[in-house]
């Protein structure tokens, strides 16, 4: 999706708009709190910030049913294979948000035990900085992700899945 492909025909463009509308408005996150950022993620779901306004309050416990992997917290080297595996168990289309400095780049832990950024094991769509990011920060990241999803062309991926 990096290079802009030629504009799709009218019907496909409408279908794209419809599917991406559905996808961006019903991002079900995977309940994946790894460290202290999880507290902020939970705060985002709670009354004051209320992630459910965007239809995202259905935190799924099963990766098969989730669309959004919020990597909330420090990914240790021990946890990295698990994170990778959970990401692989998620059903396409799926998106990843690296929440907090640890998930983005290892943060304050430049040590042998900590993975220096979760993008070393799984592809990340949106990075949110902060230690930890505030709920406003997470919501901003999620809205950014919604904008990115709205630019997607799901029909292209359905019609020729090999091109991905």
């Amino acid at each position, binding site marked *: 999706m990096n290079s802009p492909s030629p504009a799709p025909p009218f019907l496909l463009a409408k279908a794209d708009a*419809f*599917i991406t*509308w*559905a*996808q961006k*408005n*019903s991002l079900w996150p995977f*309940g994946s709190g790894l460290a202290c950022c999880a507290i902020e993620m939970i705060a985002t779901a*709670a*009354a004051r910030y*209320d992630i*459910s*306004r*965007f*239809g995202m*309050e259905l935190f*799924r*416990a*099963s990766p*098969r*049913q989730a*669309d959004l992997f919020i990597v909330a917290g420090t990914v240790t080297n021990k946890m990295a294979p698990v994170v990778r595996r959970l990401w692989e*168990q998620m*059903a*396409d*289309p799926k998106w990843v948000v690296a929440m907090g400095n640890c998930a983005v780049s290892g943060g304050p832990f430049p040590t042998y035990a900590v993975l220096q950024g979760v993008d070393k094991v799984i592809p990340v769509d949106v990075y949110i900085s902060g230690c930890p990011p505030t709920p406003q920060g997470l919501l901003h990241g999620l809205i950014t992700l919604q904008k990115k999803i709205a630019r997607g062309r*799901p029909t292209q991926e*359905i019609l020729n899945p090999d091109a991905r």
Partner: protein
Amino acid sequence: MMSPWLADGLIPLAKILAVILYPMLMVIVMIWLERRVVAWIQGRVGPNRVGYQGILQPFADAVKLFFKEDIVQRRADRFLFNISPVLVMFSTLLAFCFLPLGESFRIGDYTLNLWVARSPVGLLLVLGLSSISVFGVIFGGWASNSKYPLLGALRSVVQVLSYEIPVGLTVLTVVFLARSMDLVRIVERQQESGVWYGFLLPVSFLVFWISAIAETNRAPFDLPEAESELVAGYHTEYSGMKFAFFYMAEYAHMVLASSLVVILFFGGWLPPFPGLKAFAFLGAIPGFIWYLVKIMFFLYLYVWIRATFPRYRFDSLIRLVWKWLIPLSLVNFLVVVGLRYLL
């Protein structure tokens, strides 16, 4: 005079279409209602970005799930894995065929019945068909070839089969008063006696309602899907549209249970106070609107209970049914029969 092909061909077809669309519509309303009401109870806002007050949220979810990848694990039993969501959905929708939506009325010289099928044993059939959905749950859990789905499926079956007993025993009291298992007839009998059976049989209603919550695997009895212990229960390995089938079937089951409660205990499509002349003006509102209002009230009660009570532990769940509900419903049955003959 209506042409026969319209009466014999088109109207049954339209009814069959309606009996598929009506539960789906109720499911969509129910999903939206649940998310908004739970949010409201918790001091949040709830989905409000898609459509007016977020009413299109269930549509967005459905479309998204439709375009999601459909994962079948390598070690899963493909045949059973694929067929079980269909089984769950099929049995629930089939049960809807026997639910009357209102009294029949006449258009010209054609009598339009607001039900697809009417049977003298309609009540038994609805109970039987709704218990068939257990197949889908247990086959899905077993075919996933994974431990949490299997545990969730076993829990679900034990729970549903145990709670079937108090349901049967309390339904017997209603049948005893109405002298019929025909759902239409039961409502008509309530009209004749001038009182909803819920007020005559409060214990039956309570036991039936608790069991109905447990049979639909809803909080506080949602042990089969307890995400803190079992990930997502019997549908852990399902993704995309198959998961949506399980999800929708669960809500359709709730609509079915609410409809049954309304028909058996709250007078179906009858307006309130069917016996009192002073309230006869309430009959001006069509029957199925009363019916829908009552169903919505019980669906709201489902959500209210979910947002209020913590989840049961599994052993206390089973203890509740075997040590409290079944003896209670047995005694209730004896008391109802005894009073009926003494008074």
